[in-house]
């Protein structure tokens, strides 16, 4: 089978899985929906491997295969095929997405056990994976948009999966609308490109782009910025990030899959995919790099003070994606995508561990309530710590290689980029700090009552409450209230976390500078045309960067140890001394408040104004009243000869007018 044949299979498996789970929601017994969903994704993963091997059989310069199923639409000069593009980049992304998705499906089989919406969950999850893979395999902007929007819809459905929580439904609508704003950005960007190149498919656009635009051409920069709107909305970059922390209302495996490992990295993929545009519009690329850096700092500072375990990891995700955006914006494509992969491993793992801990806390997500789970949950402890080490960039763990490679490339670009790189190093110190803030606060220190109980074999139970508001949950739709599942007791959860921990540990070795450049080499054909292809930092510089990164990471971890383990009082002292700063960070830099004041409230006010003033006074009184008044006036004149009944009059008027018109026409013609 050809690579594109495998590509279609990659898409076919999850959509088939979705249909089976959705249509059989009543009849599928036990866990079967979960296993069917998992198998479907395993099928996709297998097909992705098929794609990989077939692609490797092609000579390097022929590793770009496009296949169209049929004409999606072709009218008025706009020609769009339903087509997929199989190249090293899309194969790489398919492998990461389907591989991680498969493990998360398996984890979910245990985690979602007993949920009333079990089959619905897997139908949604399969739909998500299908959409994500469509987004990756798309060969033109329209198919990309379809995948892009479907991913947003799936994300909406899964965020508000427990739809009787008002916090969840509110979070869902927020995520959806911001995602739609991103879609609109992409539509506008696609138009600007179409207008100049006459094409909507990548091949056609990239072939024309050098003829159509000069460097930093205004239209091209505008198009790139519009693409960035799409990318930033999906990847939760400033200022379109506010939906991501709220998205933690979804089930934890969803946070793991969609809001950490896969969907939110779509923006990174998109920039890498459209890199020929950004290289011709360096202004847009630089803006992107600055925003990525701003986001990575912003999110890291908030993660330092957030107290909700899942939200700490969510901010960490934003921050790490900031690194990736920085990477692909400074033309370090291999490094950015490398970090995308390692991040998928360790962040999925961290969320899985968090899910296990939250289950042990009977649904409570507050770091302030946790502590001492080291003895009672050894498996979760070890795997979570591996994830945290990888996140912190501890030497030889996967994140160590990938993050530092981005920073080494940024440094190598020189000029203003040096500032970005320095900021990146500082923030990676913060990263190590908040990563181990979690580890120390959850697993160390004296065990809380839930942890002590668990040591004696009793899993905590509490009446389910909304972790955000504390209000009692409506368990009717299957909020995981009565039943909690921890990794220590559920083999599918272990089976998912084990491999991820291993990958988080060794995943970095696929791209050790100078030793194993496997990944970079594999991706090379996609980025061969890049004008920065030859401009890479020397191995010496890279190793120097790794050295600095190692020091920063160890420093951050040591600081966390100092604050949370050896000098416990220090934390409160600091908080009191810097109340303003703490509040500022804790309120997430007031982004939500600003948006409420500048967008949401004016819109609502305009709606009320429209309803009460424009509709009532203008449309109804002035226009309707005026028209009706005129007709009434005419009617009262005629009232002597007829009933005066308005509708009768109206009918008569119609007949009379038609008759008159015809009569005069006849005389005119005659």
């Amino acid at each position, binding site marked *: 089978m050809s690579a594109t044949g495998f590509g279609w299979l990659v898409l076919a498996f999850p959509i088939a899985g979705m249909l089976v789970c959705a249509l059989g929601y009543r009849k599928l017994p036990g866990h079967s929906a979960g296993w069917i969903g998992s198998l479907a994704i395993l099928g996709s993963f297998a097909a992705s491997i098929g794609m990989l091997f077939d692609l490797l059989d092609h000579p390097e310069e022929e590793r770009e295969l496009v296949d169209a199923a049929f004409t999606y639409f072709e009218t008025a000069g706009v020609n769009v095929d339903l087509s997929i593009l199989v190249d090293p980049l899309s194969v790489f992304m398919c492998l990461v997405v389907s591989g991680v998705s498969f493990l998360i499906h398996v984890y979910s089989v245990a985690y979602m056990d007993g949920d009333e919406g079990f089959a619905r969950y897997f139908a949604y999850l399969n739909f998500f994976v299908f959409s994500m893979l469509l987004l990756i395999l798309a060969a033109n902007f329209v198919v990309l948009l379809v995948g892009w929007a479907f991913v947003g819809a799936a994300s909406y459905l899964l965020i508000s999966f427990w739809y009787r929580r008002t916090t969840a439904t509110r979070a869902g609508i927020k995520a959806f609308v911001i995602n739609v704003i991103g879609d609109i950005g992409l539509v506008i960007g696609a138009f600007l490109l179409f207008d100049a190149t006459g094409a909507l498919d990548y091949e056609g656009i990239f072939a024309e782009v050098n003829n159509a635009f000069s460097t930093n051409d205004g239209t091209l920069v505008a198009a790139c910025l519009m693409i960035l709107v799409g990318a930033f909305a999906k990847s939760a970059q400033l200022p379109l990030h506010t939906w991501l922390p709220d998205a933690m209302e979804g089930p934890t495996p969803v946070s793991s899959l969609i809001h950490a490992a896969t969907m939110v990295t779509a923006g990174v993929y998109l920039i890498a995919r459209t890199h020929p545009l950004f290289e011709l519009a360096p202004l847009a690329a630089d803006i992107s790099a600055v925003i990525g850096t701003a986001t990575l700092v912003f999110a890291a500072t908030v993660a330092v003070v957030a107290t909700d375990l899942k939200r700490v990891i969510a901010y960490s995700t934003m921050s790490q994606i900031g690194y990736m955006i920085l990477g692909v914006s400074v033309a370090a494509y291999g490094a950015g995508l490398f970090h995308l992969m390692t991040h998928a491993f360790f962040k999925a793992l961290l969320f899985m561990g968090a899910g296990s801990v939250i289950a042990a806390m009977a649904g409570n997500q507050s770091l302030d309530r946790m502590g001492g789970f080291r003895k009672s949950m050894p498996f979760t402890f070890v795997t979570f710590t591996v994830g945290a080490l990888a996140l912190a960039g501890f030497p030889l763990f996967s994140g160590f290689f990938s993050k530092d490679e981005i920073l080494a490339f940024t440094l190598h670009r020189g000029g203003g980029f040096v500032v970005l790189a320095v900021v990146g190093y500082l923030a990676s110190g913060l990263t190590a700090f908040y990563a181990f803030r979690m580890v120390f606060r959850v697993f160390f220190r004296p065990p809380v009552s839930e942890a002590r109980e668990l040591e004696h074999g009793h899993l905590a139970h509490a009446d389910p409450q909304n972790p955000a508001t504390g209000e009692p949950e409506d368990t009717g739709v299957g909020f995981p209230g009565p039943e909690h599942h921890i990794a220590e007791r559920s083999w599918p959860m272990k089976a998912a976390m084990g491999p991820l921990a291993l990958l988080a540990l060794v995943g970095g070795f696929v791209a050790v500078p100078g030793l194993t450049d496997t990944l970079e080499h594999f991706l090379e054909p996609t980025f061969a045309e890049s004008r920065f292809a030859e401009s890479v930092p020397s191995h010496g510089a890279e190793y120097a960067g790794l050295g600095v990164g190692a020091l920063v990471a160890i420093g951050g971890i040591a600081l966390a140890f100092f604050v949370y383990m050896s000098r416990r009082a220090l934390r409160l002292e600091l908080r009191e001394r810097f109340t303003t700063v703490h509040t500022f960070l804790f309120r997430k830099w007031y982004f939500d408040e600003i948006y409420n004041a500048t967008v949401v409230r004016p819109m609502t006010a305009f709606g009320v104004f429209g309803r009460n003033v424009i509709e009532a006074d203008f449309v109804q009184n*002035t*226009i309707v009243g005026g028209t009706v008044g005129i007709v009434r006036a005419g009617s009262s004149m005629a009232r002597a000869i007829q009933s005066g009944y308005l509708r009768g009059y109206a009918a008569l008027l119609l007949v009379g007018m038609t008759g008159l018109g015809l009569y005069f*026409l006849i005389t*005119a013609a005659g």
Partner: protein
Amino acid sequence: MGAFHLSILVFLPLAAGVVGAFVPERVSRWLVTAATVAVLVIVVAMIADFDKESGGLHYVTDDGWISELGIRYSLGVDGLNLFLLFLTAVAWVFAAVWSSFRETERIRLYFFHLALAETAVLGAFTAQDLALFVIFFDLMLVPFYFLIGGWGEEEISVAATTKFVIYTLVGSLLMLAGAVALGALSAGEGQSISFSLAELQKRSLPEGTQNWIFLLFAAAFLVKAPLFPLHGWVPDTYRASSIPVLVLVSAVLSKVGVYGFLRVVVPILPDAAHTFQTLIIVIAVVSIIYGSVLAFSQVDARMVVAYSSIAQLGFIVLGIFALDPKGAQGAVMQMVTHGLVIVPLFFIIAALTVRAGGSGSLERMGGIAFGAPVLATLFLVITLATLAIPGSPNFVGEFLILFGVFEDKLVFGLVASAGVALAAVYMIRVFQRSMHNRVAEGVQPREAGRLEIGVIAPVAAVIVALGVYPQLLLDRSEEATVSKVREAGRLADASGDAAASEQVPAAPTPVPGTPQQVPPGAGAPQVPPGAGAPQQVPPGAGAPQVPPGAGAPEQVPPGAGAPQEAPPGVAPEQVAPGGGAPQEVQP
């Protein structure tokens, strides 16, 4: 199907309705329902059989009718109306089926009106003679007047029908005047009067004459659509109508007006279409934003859909007046897909209302999804299609419309695209408030019944299918649609190039004043420069010019005509404060 007589299609429902009036009620309803199904079958066969290679009209019927007036009984199908016939057929089948299973008073009369209405709409869509179009257009009014007034919510239906009738009647009269004038004035020396659309397109009118005839038609079609600020009849009509009638009004009736723009106005009055392009685009964009904002501030589910329709129709008009092949094709797509989503949407709202104890208020709903997963899933699909998520056929329509508008009117296109985000807000809000959150008091979350699934699921399937393969429609409609905007588009391109080369600065215009302060006559200078004869625009002045050569000025809709023209004539200026400034019209 080559020899198929189109009159059979058009008059089949009416025949069933007439026969149904004389048979037992039980038989009557099924007779009419069977006729609507037969119409659907015929239309589907036409779609399958459609030969796009041969171009032009198909299944043409063209007979002399009132030869003294040059009025011909002329029907035909082309790519432009093919799928609108499909939409009509679909809407009527499900309205009839729904009504057949429900308790309805005065069944024979109800189904007679239903049948008459379908004949009138099919006639309006297939008419190839302007006079015939006007006759069918006016004929639609009669059955809908009775259906809204006679079978709706008692307490508001009188006021509602009054508004509906007066609005559409005034619109119809304006159009009648316009049609008569068009036929009479376009007949040159030695030519006989003709109302044939094809013939009218060949004849040319001076630009000044085109302008005021355009305004007459535009007023009628904008009322029918409706667009801001001519939507005053909408709220009461939507509140008062019964669900099947509402389906027909919202899904199909609204399309006849915008179809008129594409079939009649733009091809026959290309200069005027070009002259007023910016004005109509402003109205469309204001409608999009205004309708969307009002849609998300409504508490009644029906009213959300009502205002969302204003926004969606705004997109369609926007596409048509992009005067660009992409925009026009998008508009046709959007006409069909908006109609297709409206049909199930109202049936879903009916289902929700039943479950919420008879209330359509979103505040009384909530939490229905858990008890009704099938209904929730169908609603989800329809919701996503309505907000035009990529992958839905509605997206293809909006995508092409936006591409068409961006081409020459980038700024308007950008404002309009904000409407896409707002659509996400109001549609997801309805879905969420009804299906999700806590179960509201008095709500019974029951699964969809057989009838509910029976009328919702098939349309949802059609929508999904069209989303997978939109080319089915676009391919067939391309030739006919593109030809309609070619001439006006050429004018627009030419003037755009001229403006670009001359770099004429936009004429300075006064700051927006309150609408009441602007005298109707003062509107003329505000329309784009080049609007031939401004003095002809004010209704009073326009009237005497209707019948040239024919002599008698009193031939114009006498007396009542002039004052009635006033409100729509005023309308364009009144747009100003509501949504931006038509004064910003570019050269």
